[in-house]
């Protein structure tokens, strides 16, 4: 494969029909690159929970994907309300999700903890009233 590949996808807040489109594209790319199937699953489960968070909790966002021979890096950056207490948000079961989000099968406060479990590095930065950035990294070798 090329030494380094970069992609980006826009995500609309509130658009549940399209939620998962970006993660689906990421999965197709990783399959083409013959990445190990278990690694692909860890990556896209994490990116999908992050993508759903943008749809569920923010106004709009962009997912930046950066792949090289050593690792996959995904930055999920949104404009939204931000997260006032990141440690609290990381707790299993903590959720401020609306009933609409719960009707879509999410909103149990499991997304961020599961993103952490599936990745080798995860970092959240957030500014209340501005937005949130979640960076995840999966090591390939």
């Amino acid at each position, binding site marked *: 494969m090329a030494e380094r590949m970069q992609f980006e996808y826009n995500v609309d807040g509130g658009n*549940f*029909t399209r*939620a*998962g489109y970006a*993660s*689906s594209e990421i*999965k197709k790319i990783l399959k083409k690159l013959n990445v190990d*199937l278990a690694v692909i*699953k860890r990556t*896209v*489960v994490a990116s*999908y*929970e992050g993508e*759903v968070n943008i749809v569920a909790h923010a106004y709009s966002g962009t997912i930046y994907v950066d792949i090289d021979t050593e690792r996959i890096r995904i930055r999920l950056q949104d404009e939204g309300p931000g997260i006032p207490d990141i440690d609290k948000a990381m707790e299993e079961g903590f959720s401020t999700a609306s009933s609409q989000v719960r009707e*879509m*099968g*999410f*909103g*149990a406060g*499991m*997304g961020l903890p*599961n993103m952490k*479990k599936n990745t080798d590095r995860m970092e959240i930065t957030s500014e209340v009233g501005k937005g949130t950035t979640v960076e995840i990294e999966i090591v390939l070798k």
Partner: protein
Amino acid sequence: MKVKEIVKVLDAKLVCGQDQVDYSIEVAFASDLMSDVLTLKNDHVLLITGLANMQTIRTAEMSDIRCIIFARNKKATAEMIELALENEMVVLECRYSVFKTCGLLFGAGVKPIF
């Protein structure tokens, strides 16, 4: 258990994946909570659910789940079927409740994950 046996046990309707009736599932998991499904590590999982929307199919796609049963007469929309076909999934619909669906499959020897 093979898809064609599942269809028989549940008197289910095969909505898509007619060419995959010999696909074999190893374990089954029932949930309407997609975040729960996204924590599974197993291969060849059968998903039994009462949640029929695009996120159900997306969740299966990310989790490498190739067979979904919608219980209690929940229907897959055309858009859901299109996405399922793209991902070579088998989608079944059955009229029984999630409870009865699970009971029948368990009785027929399908193993749980936990």
